[in-house]
């Protein structure tokens, strides 16, 4: 786990929550100053001030206190709220998936914030993005592996048995590299397939 140049301990300490029906999110992540310095950026400060003027300091603190990275609304929606990115995932065939990425402009926010959102989309979600291209390669290699007769099972066991319940009816992976969110999606899929309508 050497991506982003972040040390393994950082990834292990990343929060990973799973909720019923296959939903999940990563949290406790982008407040880490080793990864993100933008929270003190003048543009973000201007946004915070505008939000406080509009909803009051208390509500603004509550809104901005929601600190999530990748969130998955199962089965087809993925968003990164802090960066105003939404992705819709449409499976077309067993080895073909269409991903549409949307960037959001926040009403009343500084214009520069939307330009930063687009710049972020180019680097992270763009077809030629240094991030996305590596992600796609990993998916394709996994699919390629599944076409071989080598293994009957896909292993989703990392962290199994160590997931922790919390007070919001969600479960938290004990470590940030737990596959709790994938097991959670599988459980939802099985439930949708087998539940009576």
């Amino acid at each position: 786990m050497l991506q982003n140049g972040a040390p393994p301990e950082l990834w292990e300490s990343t929060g990973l929550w799973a909720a019923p029906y296959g939903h999940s999110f990563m949290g406790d992540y982008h407040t880490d100053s080793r990864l993100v310095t933008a929270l003190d950026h003048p543009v973000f400060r201007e946004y915070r001030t505008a939000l406080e003027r509009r909803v009051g300091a208390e509500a603004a603190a509550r809104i901005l206190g929601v600190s999530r990275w990748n969130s998955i609304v199962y089965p087809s929606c993925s968003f990164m709220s802090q960066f105003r990115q939404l992705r819709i995932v449409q499976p077309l065939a067993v080895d073909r998936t269409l991903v549409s990425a949307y960037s959001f402009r926040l009403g009343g926010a500084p214009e520069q914030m939307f330009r930063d959102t687009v710049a972020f989309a180019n680097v992270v979600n763009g077809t030629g993005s240094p991030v996305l291209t590596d992600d796609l390669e990993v998916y394709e290699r996994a699919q390629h592996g599944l076409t071989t007769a080598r293994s009957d099972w896909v292993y989703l066991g990392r962290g199994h048995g160590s997931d922790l319940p919390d007070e919001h009816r969600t479960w938290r992976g004990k470590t940030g590299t737990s596959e709790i969110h994938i097991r959670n999606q599988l459980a939802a899929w099985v439930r949708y397939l087998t539940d009576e309508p």
Partner: protein
Amino acid sequence: MSRPDVDQLLVREAWLLDHQRLDEWLGLFTDDAVYWVPLQMDQAEPFTTASLIYDDRRLLEIRVRQTQHPRAHARVPAPRTVHQVTNVQVVADDGRELTVTSSLVMIEYRKERQRVWGGLVEHRLRRTDAGLRIAAKRVDLVNSESELCGIACLF
């Protein structure tokens, strides 16, 4: 600035790309250079609409380092390419910079898959003490608005 100098630079650029001489390729760009592959046809600007690629010089350096990295998944192995540059025209010259348009047909091959790319290219070339340098390169792919698999090659 004569046309042979412009032609020579574009041919040299293509040759460097096709031979993975990427540090030298990067050396053709000015420090304030922009490398842009728009998403929309006739896209006017890169800040309110996403692009396939929009790199300033720093991001372009990261892209080159990633292409050379021994463990960057989508670039192991790096795509092999053949760039065919034709229809070169100098369409503007303000004394400091020239605007040059050309057509690009590029074959990309990687891991048993061959793709053909076609694009209209616009270079902004700056006269410097070291000769002509690329201040901006824009590549409008004919299929930029299509559903595309990841792009790890360099146009």
